[in-house]
């Protein structure tokens, strides 16, 4: 069950991980995109950190919505609206009080899919979100499985986003958005968000 305090710890850990992996994320994007995914994500999570520190929050919905707006207005590029839509979707689902993690994440995935129209196998963040949401539902999310889904984007041929212009040449590289999404789910596990 998601609480205000847990949600904030989760998002702050996510921000910390993004900051640590910033260069790595941009390098991944350099190979099949335009090399800015790390900078974009770090700019967004830094802004998120600032707003989360600025005031006290009463509801999970409020936390998720504020975080989403920060990500949306600061990440830019393709991943800005995608993470933004995910968080705004999650906020809507969260309702006023405490909330069911599985349903919330499902709403997040729904936000991404509506925004980007990506299918499984298109070599995007969806290739992590989709199995991760399912795993949460079945209470079987683990670091190992996240790693597997992220790595599974390597042999895929990109069909959405900037990487799709590379066609065949996109094969053999991990998708940067899948990697950053992996960090989001890892942080969930590490902060005990999924614990009863």
């Amino acid at each position, binding site marked *: 069950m998601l609480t205000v305090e847990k949600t904030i710890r989760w998002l702050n850990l996510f921000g910390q991980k993004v900051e640590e992996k910033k260069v790595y994320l941009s390098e991944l994007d350099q190979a099949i995109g*335009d*090399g800015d995914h790390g900078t974009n994500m770090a700019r967004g999570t830094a802004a998120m950190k600032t707003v989360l520190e600025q005031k006290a929050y009463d509801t999970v919905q409020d936390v998720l919505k504020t975080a989403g707006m920060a990500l*949306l207005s*600061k990440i*830019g590029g*393709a*991943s800005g609206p995608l993470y933004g839509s995910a968080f705004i979707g999650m906020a809507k689902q969260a309702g006023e009080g405490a909330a069911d993690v599985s349903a919330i994440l499902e709403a997040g995935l729904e936000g991404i899919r509506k*925004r980007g129209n990506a299918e499984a196998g298109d070599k995007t963040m969806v290739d992590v979100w989709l199995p991760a949401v399912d795993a949460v539902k079945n209470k079987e999310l683990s670091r190992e499985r996240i790693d597997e889904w992220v790595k599974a984007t390597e042999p895929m041929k990109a069909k959405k986003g900037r990487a799709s*212009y590379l066609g065949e040449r996109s094969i053999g590289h991990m998708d940067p958005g899948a990697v950053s999404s992996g960090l989001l789910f890892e942080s969930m596990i590490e902060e005990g968000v999924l614990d009863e």
Partner: protein
Amino acid sequence: MKKIMNEPEKIVDEMLDGLVFTEDSIVERLPGTNVIARTYRSEGKVAVISGGGSGHEPTHAGFVGKGMLAAAVCGPVFTSPAPDQILEAVKHADQGAGVLLVIKNYTGDVMNFEMAEELAAMEDISVDHIIVNDDVAVEDSTYTAGRRGVAGTILVHKIIGGAAEAGLPLKELKTLADQLIPSIKTLAVALSAATVPEVGKPGFELAEDEIEYGIGIHGEPGYRREKIKSSKEMALELIEQLKKNFNWHVGDRYGVLVNGMGATPLMEQYVFINDIQHLLREEQLDIAFKKVGSYMTSLDMAGISLTMIRLKEEQWLKWLQEPVTTIAW
């Protein structure tokens, strides 16, 4: 990397301040945003807005003004602006008849502009959008992000801007765009790559004797790399590809835009259009509109793009030719 700049992170902010200082009779910057709006207002008419990542100057801010764009939203270098910036532009520019967003077809741009559209709808501003996808270097299929929006976008700004100034309502503008956009096609060739200020090295490497056909305006790879060719040969390659895409007939009426990519001098652009001129004469097309200059650039990339527009309607040509008050048209 040698550039005239200060800190790379501030380059867009400083550029916009410099632009507004220089052109204060035509444009202003909305306080606290990266939105460049025109000082002129046309109450009761649709406001046309465009934008995207920076690094394509004079696009888009150079086309803000009477008869073209009501505002331009300027993102970081090669990165789409976020929805809140676009929303600011929409709220400011709306002249009571709604707003049309002109989006270049890139995943990031499309998503950010569409989100802004949703936000604007929540504030009861009637907003619609059109997506320009003129770059024929890219396969157009439902299995990709589709064709990119490149230099042909400025012809859309001009014609749609003219139509908006003429008083066409939002719905009719959208119908016009549905006709217009498939009639515009572009193909580019690069001699050297652009260097993003924050990255500090070129996006790709071309040898001292290499060129690449079909590159995008953010260093997206093209369809073929080869040894440097004469202007005539490059012109022939681009014309042949466009011909394949247009399927034109003797006597058809077209317009031509030759666009420098940033570091290519005007001299070379004129030499190039001279070769285009000869090739099109052989094709026996009726060339009713021509334009040459660095309009949709890619930072300091050297290269050129060729845009052609099938002028199906007499009125499109009129809107292309109509005088406007902008920095760069």
